[in-house]
């Protein structure tokens, strides 16, 4: 299965179109459900970092989930089963890349599902949906 890949964060201009695109999957505006984040590397003159799930084959987030709410996804990464999620936040702490975000309204994690919708909106080829395993 395909996965999202950050090809070159140095091309990122910080427009955040990817974040808004991710939210628009839900049909709404804003960024509460954005599973990808762009932030500066400590002040915008130092450049930008694109933070998103790398689709680990052995995801630490799934390993710490106490209720089996994060199901390993074919091709890497996880799929959230919201009904099982207790909102404990352990997954967020476990992610080394800090790529698990939090929806304060729902009290649940927001994790990339590797659909590639955001990549379609990136004006500068920072993101791409790539076939095969991320760590293959």
């Amino acid at each position, binding site marked *: 299965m395909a996965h999202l890949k950050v090809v070159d964060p140095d091309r990122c201009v910080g*427009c955040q179109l990817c974040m808004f695109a991710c939210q628009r999957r839900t*049909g709404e505006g804003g960024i509460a459900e954005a599973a990808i984040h762009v932030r500066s590397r*400590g002040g915008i003159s130092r450049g930008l970092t694109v933070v998103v799930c790398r689709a680990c084959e052995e995801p630490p987030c799934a390993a710490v989930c106490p209720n089996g709410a994060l199901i390993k996804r074919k091709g890497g990464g996880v799929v959230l089963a919201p009904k099982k999620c207790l909102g404990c936040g352990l997954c967020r702490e476990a992610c080394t890349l800090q790529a698990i975000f939090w929806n304060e309204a729902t009290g649940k994690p927001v994790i990339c599902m590797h659909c590639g919708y955001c990549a379609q909106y990136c004006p500068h080829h920072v993101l791409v949906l790539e076939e095969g395993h991320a760590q293959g």
Partner: protein
Amino acid sequence: MLKDDPLKRVLYVDLATKKFWVEERPELFEENIGGTGVASKLLEEECPVGIDPRDPKNPIILAVGPANGLFPIASKTVAMFQSPHTGNLGESHAGGRSATCLRLAGYGAVVIRGQSDIPVYLVIDRSGVKFRDARALWGLSVSATGRAIREKETGSGLRSILRIGPAGETGVTYSCVVTETYRHFGRLGLGALFGAKKLKAVCLVGRRSLPVTDRKLYRELYDELLKRLRETPALKKYHDLGTAVNVIPLNERGALPTRNLRQTRFEMAEKISGEYFAEHLLSRRLACSHCPMACIHLAALRTPYEDEPYFYKTTFISYDYEPIYANGSMIGVGSAEGILKLLDTIDNLGLDAMSSGVVLAWATEAFEQGLVGEEETLGLRPRFGDVETYLQMLHHIAYQSNEFYAALARGVAYASSRYGGEDFALAFGGNEMPGYHTGYGAHLTHLTGSRHSHLDSGGYSYDQKLSPEEITPEKLAHILFDEEVYRQILSSGVCCFFGRSVYNYETLSRIFKVSGFDFEVEDLKALGRKILRRKYAFKKARGFELTKLKIPRRILETVSPHGKLEEEFLRQGLAIYKSLLESGA
């Protein structure tokens, strides 16, 4: 508007009592949309007539609109206040991330009242306001302030830090508020009002979702607009070279104000052109939040330390057409590196780059003519092109080192009223001149525009579109009035004016419908006129008289691409504009 849209929430902050509260005011937004429309109404409510701009009763109002956080290129926040610079209407728009953050923190507007007893900064998020002690930040440069707050507060990537530098603290009337290091509430002195309130910074943090009337329609309209924006040639132009692309064409037309507008062509224009910057200094391009254009251009300036060999610092400095004009051709600086040094200092002191350059230009000519001497300048001998002297003068202005620099810190209109040289004091309605001597259109915009900004009605572009024979005062006044009316709606959205070729009335009507606002094109036009007239009424109540505005002699003496400009033409234009503003009022 939609019931669950947080746009209707107005956050009130009282700096004196350190209290805040939220009022839900859906009717305020339903009648005025947001941005300029809402802010002008709030200013009318909040700001008493007859106060000094430094009075604690002078409010700071920030407002966003329905399109922020929903549609591309809707990236601006509107600030309104009584201007410390002109004493009248203050309105300034900034890009960056502030609009997204404020909208997604769950507010449509913020009203900041009163004055704090000690320096503070505010953190505004979904839970309200936190008042933080800023005594340790007072006196710090813009960049050091940003760095400290960035490391102290959470929310990286989802926040916007608005801050002032020393110039705002001392009350330079054209000091600015900087956001995200490279964007500004530049004009009319919002920085001085922050300073008067002892407000060092505002950190906005937000990341909520926003409702729409129809999810499918929203996505379709979004895709359509993004496609249209990407296909607009002007946007590609500004993405490639940035607004600095305008230096060469304006110079070729003989419209690039040079050496305090004694000339309109600069022999070193190529060395300060967008092309030169791109080829030699451009290091990074950036975008405001939700903008596909990325017009922000950063130059990398490498400077050696003089006390140690092979010891350098590299600074990233943003450049745009207006700062290049004001701190380049206008003061005879023909080196891009020299301009960057000036801009770096201006940015860190927290001055408005446009007014600063025009002030230096006036001071240089005043010194040349002997209106002021070394006693006033503290031993400096300003002359056109002398970057090192200008750097020292900027510090003296920011810290108001003596009476002369304190006068310069109030702009050229005031300084020339004290020292003479009014004929070459290039200000309109008290605001220093933008970089266009293109003809009647540009100057009529500077005079009539509610902010005395080139962006109020873009007259410079009509000078380039219309031939001199086509232009009459009557025609020009009508064109500029209609344009300024339209821009009230654009800035109520709040959309960047670069999107104007795509975001026409019809498109804006569709955009607003997604948020449940029911405005047809004719309704929007009527509302645009209403907002503009409301702003005009605010100014009139504070003694503004359009037909009595001073027209700087220099613009009539220096030939424009449309020939020598006649005062009578501009006076007629002003009279007609006034009648348009006052009809139906």
